[in-house]
């Protein structure tokens, strides 16, 4: 049995303390790939959060009737089904965003965060807690992608959510792949620095 944790902790841990991108460093492929603008980061984050919550819920419901040996294939089928649902819905109702994100939507299936939470949390906890865990991780992931996307768009294109702030060219490299690594590195460094300061001030 896991030690008793309060519901708020289950939800909040995914946002800062165990943020899937900035702290656990999981799911970096879509993180680096799609965050060339704030809206892309937001879209990808919300799509992943939806899959996380739904698959956590479904897996926590069926955890007792799935034999141990086939648990991973069963989880993957469940996750893949939800990802396909998201993809169909996006193609139907947000076609422009769907084209922008392209291949990265089907790739949510192999996002380590989703299977990681299914295996580490949903298959051992009640459905209520699993939904909270999925929500927390989803919000944390969305927050991370939105932050990355917003910073890259601001520096690279001098715009915010598509609105030009200054009519000039930005620093191109921030929209390209290297900019994703540079920005992510600086964000992680900043978070570590803040954590370190907090620790030393309480001492």
């Amino acid at each position, binding site marked *: 049995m896991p030690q008793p944790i309060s519901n708020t902790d289950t939800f909040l841990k995914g946002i800062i303390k165990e943020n899937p991108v900035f702290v656990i460093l999981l799911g970096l492929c879509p993180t680096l790939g799609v965050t*060339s603008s704030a809206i892309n980061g937001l879209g990808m984050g919300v799509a992943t959060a939806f899959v996380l919550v739904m698959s956590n819920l479904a897996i926590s419901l*069926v*955890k*007792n*009737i*799935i*034999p*141990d*040996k*086939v*648990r991973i*294939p*069963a989880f993957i*089928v*469940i996750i*893949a*089904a939800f990802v*396909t*649902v998201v993809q*169909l*819905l996006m*193609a*139907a*109702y947000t*076609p422009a965003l769907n*084209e922008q994100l392209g291949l990265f939507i089907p790739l949510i299936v192999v996002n380590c965060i989703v299977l990681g939470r299914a295996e580490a949390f949903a*298959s*051992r906890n009640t459905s209520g807690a699993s939904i909270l865990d999925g929500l927390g991780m989803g919000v944390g992931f969305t927050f991370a992608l939105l932050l990355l996307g917003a910073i890259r768009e601001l520096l*690279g*294109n001098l715009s915010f959510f598509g609105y030009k702030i200054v009519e000039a*060219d*930005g620093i*191109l490299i921030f*929209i*390209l792949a290297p900019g994703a690594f540079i920005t992510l590195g600086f964000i992680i460094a900043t978070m570590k620095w803040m954590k370190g300061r907090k620790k030393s001030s309480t001492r």
Partner: protein
Amino acid sequence: MATIKSSFINLLLTLAIVTLIAGLSLGYVYQWTKEPIAQAQMAKQLKAIESVVEGYDNNPVNEKYKVATPDGKDSLEFFPARKGEELIGVAIKTKSTRGYSGDIWVMVGFDQAGQIKNIVVIEHKETPGLGSKMTTPAFVNQFLNKHPEKLKLKVKKDGGDIDAISGATISSRAYVEAVQSAFDTFKSSVNHATAN
């Protein structure tokens, strides 16, 4: 955690049931989103056609037909724009496979004389900030209201009339090539029509 034993028959049954339920629900969602997806695609094509030919009152997507390119390797989709009975122009969906990354799909609008009315990029995966500038007016304006027989459809580096986007010669070349293939196909279709 699992209360069911991992016997062979249990493994088989659970996996079969899980996939069956997943498959059934996907089938349901597919049916549900089929119509909106078709509509979204139609709207996207109509929007592209709308911006390259104007003043028509038919639905060009419903009247689309395919014409083989002169070299016979491919065929392009033609969307005729009519006002009443009169044909006033045609939008041609064309592509180049020689982009910097992936295919570039372009919609080119011609009037009856073969002048380029407008060009829009439907889909591309070129580098943001470099190749993606092919959608900006500064580049596209070089083509507008020109007749490809008088405008040399090549980038200046290759001895043509088109100023390539700086830093994106490959994308510019591919774009120009796509426009050229649309015009060649347009010309051969007109020649066929008058020969008959």
